[in-house]
């Protein structure tokens, strides 16, 4: 493979990373809202959140992407495929992240909250100083896992025409008749990115453990 083509693949890998991390970020924000709604005692808040999580975890991402990509024009919103892809990935990861966060929040030890009550912390102080930090720390491994899943799942946005790593490999494989080479290189790049994310994740975990309170 020529240096120029490899550079093209590297750039495409960058696109994949950007798409994935933007989705993870937006997904985290939506996930926090969905998680809060799911933990809410009000049924009119809880049920839509339950339905949201169940739908986005129960339908293949490919179908979600096709649905969003074709549905938006049907309701008169013609968005570029990149935007459709970002919406799809973000909503999908939001559902998973909401569940991960919920797991984190529900595993905060009750004793800590009772102790906080005793010393007279307000509910907001309890949330900010006890529940949120502990829940977030418990969620970090799941978040890293989710980042890796989304990095891999983002290959599906190639189907709605976003030129990222998989689509670039596809284009180059078709124009050079060298599918083995280009798909292997793409696979290698995904692997390298995922290993870096996993490595960064375990460093973060270790740092958090060193500074831990409980």
């Amino acid at each position, binding site marked *: 493979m020529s240096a120029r083509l490899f550079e093209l693949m590297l750039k495409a890998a960058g696109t994949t990373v950007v798409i994935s991390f933007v989705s993870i970020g937006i997904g985290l924000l939506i996930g926090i809202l969905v998680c809060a709604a799911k933990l809410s005692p009000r049924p009119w808040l809880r049920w839509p959140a339950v339905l949201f999580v*169940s*739908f986005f*975890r*129960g*339908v*293949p*991402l*490919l*179908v*979600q992407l*096709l*649905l969003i990509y*074709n*549905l938006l024009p*049907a*309701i008169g919103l013609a968005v570029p495929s990149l935007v459709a892809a970002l919406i799809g990935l973000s909503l999908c990861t939001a559902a998973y992240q909401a569940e991960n966060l919920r797991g984190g929040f529900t595993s905060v030890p009750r004793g800590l909250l009772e102790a906080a009550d005793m010393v007279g912390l307000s509910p907001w102080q309890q949330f900010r100083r006890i529940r949120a930090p502990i829940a977030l720390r418990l969620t970090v491994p799941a978040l890293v896992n989710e980042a*890796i899943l989304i990095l*891999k*799942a*983002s*290959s*599906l946005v*190639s*189907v709605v025409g976003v030129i990222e790593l*998989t689509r670039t*490999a*596809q284009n180059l*494989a078709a124009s050079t008749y060298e*599918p*083995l080479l280009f*798909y*292997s290189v*793409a*696979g290698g790049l*995904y*692997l390298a990115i*995922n*290993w870096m994310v996993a490595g960064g994740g375990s460093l973060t975990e270790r740092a958090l453990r060193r500074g831990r309170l409980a």
Partner: protein
Amino acid sequence: MSFDVSVIVAALPAILSGLKVTLGIWLAATMMGAGLGFVVAALRHFGPRPLGLALRLAVEILRGTPFLIQIFLLYFGGPFVGISLDPVPAGLLGLTIYAAAYFSEIFRAGFAAVPRGHVEAAQCVGLSQTQIVRRILIPEMTMLVLPQCVNMAVVLVKETAVLSIIAVPEATAVISALGSQQYAFVESLFLLAIIYWGLVEACGWAGRALETRLSKFRFA
């Protein structure tokens, strides 16, 4: 946005055949993947070290790359190394190998989670290695790994949709083609989403029911 049910009713036979392919590939790949994954986990646990390392590398590669890339490599790259497969066998083989990588990790964790004391006790009373596997490790593991196995089966239902990209005539391919032929994207894609949603929920429900029934036999 309009919703025309007649498009779907007219195409019912095609939809059913697509569903049959989805279910067939899913069941076959799940079972073969679990079997192969078990063999890989057992080889990594009991086999010689170099083989274990080679299998570990293979599992890491399969788990670290997108399924779509794996399928492209197999389907489009395969003919260059003498593996020419039609879409259905290629999809089945690809999904089985992918599933095996994940199942092997589940079983490996299962092997490691069986209390060492149970294995040592079995050795003390003179059980052979195969007896230990058959009568101690596998029964104890089954309960431990069941939830993750159900989870993996659910992941695999959804992964079958990716096979539409190499033209396996499964539900996603058939139903979304229906959409583009008749310009009925909304109807067809909603139907597709509902079908998978139902499958996934049913699978999760069946898994939980199975778990409750089997929990009677829990040892540890």
